[in-house]
């Protein structure tokens, strides 16, 4: 009898082993939606650009891109695309500093046929020489030209990040540098795949109308990824600036001055205190919202630019997205201010005869105005009414972050990176509990304006005078056209005067030629 029981246990154990996959290092995030007409899988590798070896910046990006835009399972990339075309199924990869995320989407009734492609992209990439050449050519082109030419706003954002993390593994563009990308070989990509895309740093999520059997199949497949021991690289911390350190990137033919400024922040979504700081930040500079303070002061009252916002974590592709996307969790954090391009002297002179004598445009004034607003908030704190209105807004607004199945899944998976189960739900509870005192304590603890980095992308004609004005703390009176100036209320003019001479702790100003940016770490 004992023998029979033992045998039964073994058989049961075998049956279980056949049905249940070998466990992955992380729990699968499931979001079953029976009424959905599609299936979404997200597969995240905890590597990101911080996992690039020194001198091989861009290697994680190259590897992931070649997986997503190359052949797999012995099938050519073109043939895979042909197979997907009639179902409009698709997959793509996003590489950030600490994670690489593949997202697969397919109509539910085509999921079975799609599955082998998902599996092969992740487990059996062809790493074909011809695909490699194409992918690397695009990547090279991005770091050589596109990053400098397509958006001065993004350019200044990446330049700020480079200043903040210079010398560390968070500094470089995820695409790498002009020099490092040139040196990446196909053999290095293959080796990096085996080293950094393993069963030990992978996380799986599924949303929509997927079958349990397929999910288990995918879990089992991912468990056959290389069993390389994986120690996630520690992301470097932001450097401590000595006073306000400014880098002005002088670019031929720039039409305005694009500004980003920021400094290290010691908390992330993992910390409960983050919710309190989120309230202060939303009041000050909620992304793309007309009712936040910076926007009202710089754009609405003075119409200096298209918008002005502040952040307490990385916001991916802010020029495109109105709501924050998922898939960019980061442990090494900083807060920042985004001042969209303001006018340069050459433009103002050309537009208005009354401004013919000015020597610098609006960048210095705008920077002073933004920093002064932070100083005023730190000094005065948020009012009870603003606190309540902002908290109410946020508790409704954060529900909009995760609307589609793919977005919901993305936010749930990000939650786990921060040690949370459902960040948005937990955030709502934290917001509900937050007090005005906590908000004011958090903003005073985490925000200061004495030591910051500033990146400004501007025209070559603007750079020298702007640099001189900043380093000497020279008055920077706002230069309005007569049309606007004549109607400005007294309180605005009085505030302008205060802003024009507002002291900034600028200790260092460097002018960098556009071609010399992003040299390496």
């Amino acid at each position: 009898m004992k023998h029979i029981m033992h045998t039964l246990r073994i058989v049961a154990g075998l049956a279980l082993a056949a049905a249940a996959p070998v466990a992955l290092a992380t729990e699968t995030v499931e979001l079953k939606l029976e009424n959905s007409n599609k299936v979404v899988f997200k597969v995240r590798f905890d590597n990101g650009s911080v996992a690039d070896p020194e001198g091989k910046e861009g290697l994680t990006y190259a590897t992931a891109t070649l997986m997503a835009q190359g052949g797999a399972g012995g099938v050519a990339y073109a043939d895979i695309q042909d197979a997907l075309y009639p179902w409009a199924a698709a997959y793509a990869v996003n590489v950030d500093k600490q994670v690489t995320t593949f997202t697969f989407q397919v109509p539910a009734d085509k999921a079975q046929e799609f599955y082998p492609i998902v599996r092969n992209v992740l487990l059996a990439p062809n790493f074909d020489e011809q695909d490699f050449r194409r992918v690397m050519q695009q990547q090279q082109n991005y770091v050589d030209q596109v990053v400098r030419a397509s958006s001065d706003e993004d350019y200044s954002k990446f330049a700020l990040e480079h200043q903040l993390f210079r010398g560390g593994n968070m500094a470089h563009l995820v695409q790498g540098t002009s020099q490092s990308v040139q040196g990446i070989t196909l053999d290095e990509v293959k080796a990096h795949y085996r080293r950094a895309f393993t069963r030990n740093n992978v996380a799986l999520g599924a949303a929509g109308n997927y079958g349990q059997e397929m999910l288990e199949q995918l879990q089992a497949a991912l468990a056959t990824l290389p069993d390389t021991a994986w120690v996630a690289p520690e992301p470097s911390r932001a450097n401590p600036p000595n006073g306000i350190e400014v880098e002005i990137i002088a670019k031929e033919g720039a039409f305005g001055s694009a500004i980003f400024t920021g400094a290290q922040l010691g908390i992330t979504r993992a910390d409960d205190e983050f919710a309190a700081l989120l309230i202060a930040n939303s009041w000050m500079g909620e992304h793309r919202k007309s009712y936040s303070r910076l926007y009202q002061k710089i754009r609405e009252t003075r119409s200096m630019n298209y918008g002005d916002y502040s952040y307490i974590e990385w916001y991916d592709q802010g020029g495109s997205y109105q709501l924050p996307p998922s898939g960019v969790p980061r442990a090494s954090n900083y807060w920042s201010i985004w001042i969209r391009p303001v006018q340069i002297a050459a433009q103002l002179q050309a537009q208005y005869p009354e401004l013919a004598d000015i020597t610098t445009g609006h960048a210095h004034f705008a920077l002073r105005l933004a920093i002064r607003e932070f100083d005023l908030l730190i000094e005065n704190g948020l009012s009870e009414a603003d606190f309540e209105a902002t908290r109410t807004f946020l508790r409704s607004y954060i529900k909009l972050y995760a609307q589609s199945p793919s977005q919901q899944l993305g936010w749930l998976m990000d939650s786990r990176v921060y040690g949370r189960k459902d960040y948005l739900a937990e955030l709502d509870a934290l917001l509900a509990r937050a007090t005005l005192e906590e908000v004011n304590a958090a903003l005073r603890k985490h925000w200061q304006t004495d030591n910051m980095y500033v990146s400004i992308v501007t025209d070559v004609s603007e750079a020298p005078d702007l640099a001189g004005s900043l380093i000497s703390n020279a008055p920077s009176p706002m230069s309005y056209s007569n049309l606007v100036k004549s109607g400005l209320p007294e309180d605005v003019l009085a505030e302008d005067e205060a802003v024009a001479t507002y002291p900034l702790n600028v200790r260092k100003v460097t002018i960098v030629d556009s071609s010399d940016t992003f040299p390496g770490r």
Partner: protein
Amino acid sequence: MMNRLNLAAAALALLLTGAAYGAATDSPEPTRILPYPIHQHVLDNGLNVVTVPFDSPGLAAFYIVTRVGARNEVEEGVTGFAHFFEHMMFRGTDRYSKAEYSDALKSTGAAANANTSQDRTEYHMTGNAEMLDLMFELEADRFMNLNYSEHDFKTEAGAVKGEYTKNFASPYSRISEKLLETAFTTHTYGHTTMGYFEDIVNMPNQFEYSRKFFDRYYRPEYNTILVVGDVTPQRVNALAEKYFGAWERGDYVSEVPPEPPQQETRFTHLQDGSIPPYFSMNYKGPAFSDQEMDMPALDVLSSIVFSNTSDLYKKLVLEEQKVRFIGGGAGDSRDPNLFSIQVSMVDKADMGYVRAEIEKAIAKVQTEGVDASELQRTKSHLKYRFAMQMDTPDAIAGSLSHYIQLTGDPESINRLYALYDAVSQEDILEVANAYLQADRLTIATITEDAKGPFE
């Protein structure tokens, strides 16, 4: 083929009389790509109210589609005005000052914004469905009673200039401006939605015109209300009656000058070495129609000939790697617009070769047509792609808004996909020969050289 301008005029006339859809229609049609009923209700003043209930607990997307855009900027010196006016819509009323409006908007907790294109201005709020009452109140107030000071008007022009400034960094924006003014000599599609910089700089002087603009277009007959999400048509219609019922109909009809036929290939060039060499081939195409086969056939053609699975893409991008990117297609618009093929090159020396390859691919469709199985695969692709995208109230509202701007009727979406189903090999042969001809072509180029490579 029916004259498209007449068709557009007929559609507008129907809309102005409020007779386009009857008083209230719940339309069950046989082939419907959108699996949700579209409820339409026209108020006595001609305002069409569209509701699409969708399973999104607590969430609703509230859109107002104003059928005025850069296309309507027919007068001298006012390019970019529709877009500028969109900015002014956030500048307050007698009831809600701009500060009070901001506070009230914030209290909705919604994601709210607006944008303008050639044919329309779109105002949208997505948020808590329980806040719909306040959303209606705020929108009705500003659409009916907008009132801003002359100073606010002058000031806002700076923000538009800031928007131009941020966009101007991209050489692609600059070539787009040059392309439109080369391709269109008469029609208002000849300028971008942003407008010419000199007109933007001069905007502060157009206060009087701005009042006229509001009076012309911010009227029931130019607008459609669209709500998608956790709502019922009864609730939406009642809110519309309550807040927009008193809105007075206007009588202005915009006369947009038709573009004369083009006689020969035109060229425009931008000297800029900061990005990879680039060119686009832009053929004068048709206007959007949910009745004629031209646009659906061109959409199918562009997917077969220029998408990532096309022979051209495989050859130029994947195999030869002379091209970084190639894509093509027709933009939907109310009047005839451009069918554009865009190419980002690796080496400018290959531009002539790549252009010849594109022309060869076009010539092949013009003589041999397309393969029947490829046609079927493309129809499947279009249907699945659409179905997969419709997974949030915002996505559905955004899509319906697109068709409302074109025809005034959200059912156009279902009619268009029914047409896709019916596209034949003969249709593709016909549109390839009708539209993809050298005398309809404008080529725009960007290289580091002073002179364009094809001139």
